[in-house]
C-alpha cells in the first residue's frame, strides 16, 4: 500500500520534470531537470527491488551525465566568449 | 609525520565502518582488518605528501578534550538553529531581517577555517558566503548588529574558543 503511494507520487514527479526538461527555454534548467528525472527514476528502481540499477543510475545518470553536459556547455561558452 | 598518521587513522576508521557487517559475519576478522591497514597505509603514502592539511592539528591533552566536546557544542547549536528556522518558517509574517556582514577570524590553519565556516553555516541564522583573507562574509537572517566587531563577537566567538585550541 505505502509502496504504491510512494511509487505513484514519485512517478508523477518524474513525468513532470521530464516535461520541464523538454519544454524549458533555458538550457541549464533543462539539464538539471533531466538529472532530476534520473534521480526519481532511481528511486523507482529501488522500489522495484533493483538496488544495483538504482546505484548505477544515481551515479551515472544523475551525477556523471550532468557533469558531462556542463563540461560541454562550458566549452561552448568559452568559445563564444573568445569570439566576441 | 603527524599528517600521515592522521590520514591513516581516518581512512582506517572509514574502512572499519564500511565493512563492519562483513566483519561481524565472517570468521576472518584479522585478515579483513589487515587488508584495511595495508590499503589505508598505501593510500596515505600516495597522497599524504601532497596536501599537509592536518599538519596544524594539535594533539595536546587539552586539545583532545576540546575535540571531544566540540561535537556537543555543535549539535546544540544545530538544534537551536533548527528551532529558529521552524519559528521563522511557520510564522505567517516571515520575521526576517537579512544582511551580509563581515566578521574577522583569528584562525590560521585552512582546516580550522573550513570547520569554522561549516559550523557557522549550520548554526542559527547564519550562512558563510565567502572567505577573503582573514575575514568571513556571513549572510545573517536576522542581523542584530552590522558592525564588524560586535558581529564577530556574536557569531564567531562561541566556536573559535574551541577551534583555536584544536587547530591553532
Amino acid at each position, binding site marked *: 500500500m505505502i509502496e504504491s503511494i510512494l511509487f505513484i507520487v514519485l512517478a508523477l514527479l518524474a513525468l513532470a520534470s521530464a516535461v520541464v526538461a523538454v519544454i524549458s*527555454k*533555458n*538550457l*541549464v534548467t533543462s539539464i538539471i531537470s533531466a538529472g532530476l528525472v534520473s534521480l526519481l527514476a532511481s528511486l523507482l528502481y529501488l522500489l522495484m527491488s533493483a538496488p544495483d540499477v538504482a546505484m548505477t543510475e544515481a551515479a551515472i545518470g544523475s551525477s556523471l551525465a550532468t557533469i558531462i553536459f556542463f563540461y560541454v*556547455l562550458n566549452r*561552448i*561558452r568559452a568559445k563564444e*566568449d573568445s569570439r*566576441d | 609525520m603527524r599528517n600521515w598518521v592522521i590520514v591513516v587513522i581516518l581512512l582506517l576508521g*572509514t574502512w*572499519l*565502518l*564500511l565493512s*563492519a*557487517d562483513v566483519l*561481524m559475519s565472517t570468521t576472518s576478522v584479522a585478515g579483513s582488518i589487515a587488508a584495511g591497514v595495508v590499503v589505508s597505509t598505501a593510500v596515505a603514502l600516495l597522497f599524504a605528501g601532497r596536501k599537509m592539511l592536518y599538519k596544524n592539528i594539535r594533539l595536546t591533552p587539552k586539545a583532545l578534550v576540546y575535540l571531544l566536546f566540540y561535537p556537543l557544542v555543535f549539535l546544540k547549536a*544545530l*538544534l537551536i*538553529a*533548527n528551532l529558529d*528556522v*521552524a519559528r*521563522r*518558517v*511557520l510564522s505567517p509574517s*516571515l520575521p*526576517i*531581517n*537579512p*544582511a*551580509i*556582514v*563581515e566578521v574577522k577570524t583569528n584562525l590560521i590553519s585552512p582546516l580550522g577555517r573550513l570547520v569554522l*565556516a*561549516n559550523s557557522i*553555516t*549550520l548554526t542559527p*541564522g547564519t*550562512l*558563510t*558566503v*565567502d572567505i*577573503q583573507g582573514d575575514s568571513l*562574509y556571513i*549572510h545573517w*537572517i536576522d*542581523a542584530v548588529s*552590522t558592525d*564588524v566587531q560586535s558581529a564577530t563577537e556574536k557569531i564567531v566567538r562561541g566556536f573559535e574558543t574551541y577551534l583555536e585550541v584544536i587547530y591553532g
Partner: protein
Amino acid sequence: MEITMIAGGVVSLSGSLFLLLGALGVVRMPDLFNRIQAGTKATTLGTMLFLAGIAIAEPSWIPKLLLLILFIIFTNPVSSHVLARSAHHTGIRMSDKTVVDHLAKTTEQRGSESLQGDEQEIAAAKSKGGER
C-alpha cells in the same frame, strides 16, 4: 523489541517533520540566500534524526548509518556555501528587507573596473538567454 521500534519511529517522525520544515522554508522564503539557509539547516538535522531513528530500531546498521551521517554533515554545508557564493557573484537580486551587504562593498573597493567588466559579461550572457 517493540519499545526500540517505537522510540526509533518517534525520532524518525520528528526528523521527517524537520525535513518538511526545510522544504516549506525553501518554498516560502523571499530570496535565494534565505532559501539556502532554511534548506541547509533543516534538512541536515532532519536527515540526521531520520537516520538516528533507523539506527535505534535496527542496531546492526549503526556503522553505515554513522558514516552516512558524517558524509551529510561534511558535504551539506559545502554545497550550500558554493551555491551562496555563486549566487552572490552572479548578482542575484536580494530581498528588499536586506539591511546591509558588506561583501558588495569590498568587491567594489577591490577593483571597480574588473568587476564592472565582469558584470557586463554576466549581463551579456543573460541577454543571450542561456544559449538560446
